[in-house]
């Protein structure tokens, strides 16, 4: 458990740095974000209190010391106070994000899991059958590895939603549906999430396939694989022995991959008009809604750190060597 404790400490430090960046970036970059926000607020009565609150948020026209502002910022974050979203009728950012978060967690979480399992399995098989027709998959995989997620989303919508009409093309549910915990609504949400999820799976599986194949090729040369084959074990068992060990770098490489996948998935959400964090990100950009941007950065970072922590638990479970240390 020492490993987990150390990783946990690392994630806490990373979270603290993310919060500090969130505080510092508006103050480091020249320009006055408050003016930019006020210029966007057409048709809203701006009270001096609003301006004062914004000034405090971005450290403009304030007599408080930088340290004082910093501790104030921390206090706010720890109390879940991320400011207000100008693009969403001054609702608290935390409320806005809370409404969108379940969609992204569900879509990206499930898609990432499927892509990991599928990609790793395909990678293991491609490596095992090296020199067979399966090698022809690699150029295709290379293309998908390089194509932007949102371009694949364009194609998926045009082909599968519009031309073939198999899937709905936008949103997370029919506009007429009322969110409720019943089968009509749930099946509707599932129906709407299938195409975006498949887009994310296809776009992200490529990385796992290549990663797994490369490690598997090395693992297949290990003595224990030779012994397993020499004993006459069924081929499936032998592949399993090799794959079980080859999967470790994929799990530890999760940290790098998840950042890319989340970024790609958020852009995919935008193309699908999916009401998750990606669409909020676009909304924040289009409206200069800085506090929403900052809140999204924090929440997405925390979610990625949590995903990494889960990957660490899986790693400790898979690799007994990490457990011996303590």
């Amino acid at each position, binding site marked *: 458990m020492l490993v987990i404790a150390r990783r946990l400490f690392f994630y806490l430090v990373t979270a603290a740095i993310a919060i500090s960046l969130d505080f510092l970036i508006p103050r480091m970059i020249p320009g006055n974000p408050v003016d930019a926000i006020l210029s966007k607020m057409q048709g809203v009565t701006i009270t001096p209190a609003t301006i004062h609150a914004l000034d405090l948020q971005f450290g403009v026209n304030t007599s408080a010391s930088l340290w004082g502002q910093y501790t104030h910022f921390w206090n706010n974050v720890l109390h879940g106070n991320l400011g207000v979203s100008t693009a969403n009728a001054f609702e608290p950012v935390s409320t806005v994000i809370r409404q969108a978060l379940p969609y992204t967690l569900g879509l990206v979480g499930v898609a990432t899991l499927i892509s990991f399992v599928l990609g790793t399995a395909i990678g293991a098989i491609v490596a095992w059958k090296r020199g067979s027709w399966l090698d022809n998959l690699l150029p295709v995989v290379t293309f998908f590895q390089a194509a932007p997620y949102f371009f694949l989303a364009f194609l998926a919508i045009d082909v599968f939603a519009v031309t073939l009409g198999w899937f709905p093309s936008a949103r997370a549910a029919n506009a007429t549906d009322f969110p409720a915990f019943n089968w009509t609504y749930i099946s509707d949400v599932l129906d709407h999430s299938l195409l975006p999820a498949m887009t994310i799976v296809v776009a992200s599986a490529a990385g796992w396939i290549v990663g797994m194949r490369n490690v598997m090729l090395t693992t297949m040369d290990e003595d224990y694989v030779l012994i397993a084959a*020499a004993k006459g074990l069924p081929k499936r068992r032998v592949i399993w022995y090799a794959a079980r060990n080859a999967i470790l770098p994929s799990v530890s490489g999760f940290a790098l991959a998840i950042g890319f996948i989340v970024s790609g998935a958020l852009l995919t959400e935008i193309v699908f008009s999916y009401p998750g964090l990606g669409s909020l*990100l676009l909304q924040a950009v289009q409206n200069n809604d800085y506090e929403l*941007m900052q809140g999204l950065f924090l929440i997405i970072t925390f979610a990625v750190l949590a995903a990494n922590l889960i990957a660490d638990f899986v790693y400790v479970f898979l690799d007994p060597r990490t457990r011996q240390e303590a």
Partner: protein
Amino acid sequence: MAVGIGTEQVTGGAPVPGAALLGTGSPRRRQRALRLPRSPKIIVGLAMLTFFVLLSVIGPLVAPYSPDQIFANSPVPLPPSSAHWLGTTNLQQDVFSQLLAGGSDMLLVSFIAGVIATALSVVIGVTAGYLGGLADDLLSMLANIFLVMPALPLLVILFGFLGKTGSNDLFLIGFIISVTGWAWGARVLRAQTLSLRNRDYVDSAKIIGERRSRIIFAEILPNLTPIVASSFLFTVLYAVGTYTAMAFLGLVNPNWSWGGILYYAQGANAELTGYWWWYIPPGLAVALLGTSLVLLNFGIDEFINPRLRAAGLSRRGGDRKRARALRSQQFALTPVLPVSRPPAAPLDTTAATAGNGGRA
């Protein structure tokens, strides 16, 4: 040929491929460098990359129209015709001209980002790996923090606060992208430096009394070249994707870019209305440019770790037999070669298979 040495000692694990291969002397390295272009992946990758670089440089000069020119003759985007090879946008601008104009800024930004990020990763990775101790702990932690922090929302804040003025400065954009993209290279380089540090030739250099700077620059860095090259390509690929994503969000849009075309196409719902000529060319261009970089990277990976070589992109009967023979060897502790084959060329089989596959 010389590459045969050390195949059986290649260390496992994705981040440090082919550690043993890198320790060999320089004449051998030169030989291998000459062999490099024989891999079909490298040839195809280089050809595609050259094409896109030429396209971006010459493109704006040979474009039939200005990308901003408006041809007011239809309320909806027009499909490809002889006047507009790739059709028009909803504003009746020529998609082909926009495509030709859209590559240069992106490539320049990606190149700047690649150079800065590679320099950062070499400095930080080699320092951490060579010094060890507390410096290593702190620098590794820094790299890991940048590695786990999701880049997209961070870049959105940075470009969001920079606003219009900052998003027109190509060098600044490249610099910001590189800040979020150096950590992976630094981690790989650190691991490799760590393994090179304790090699005999480094020890002997130390015993002779060479200065630390000479050991790093003359003994260690040259042996990191393939990894530096691979991390440079990786960063350029990352920058291409990131710049396209930023342009797609409308955050950077100084001139035309492929991501920018997609931004307008998405704004006009091109994917819902079947205006394929509007969104497919820029998307495909980004994807193929990325593919060329990935192929080159694969080529370098296979060069570092020959075990990764597949038997080629396509194959014929002869190759298949050789590949099967190769596969049967995988269970041997030492390579057992068919009697008919000269024993000195165990790896040429692999190389030849890879080469033939591409030529076939």
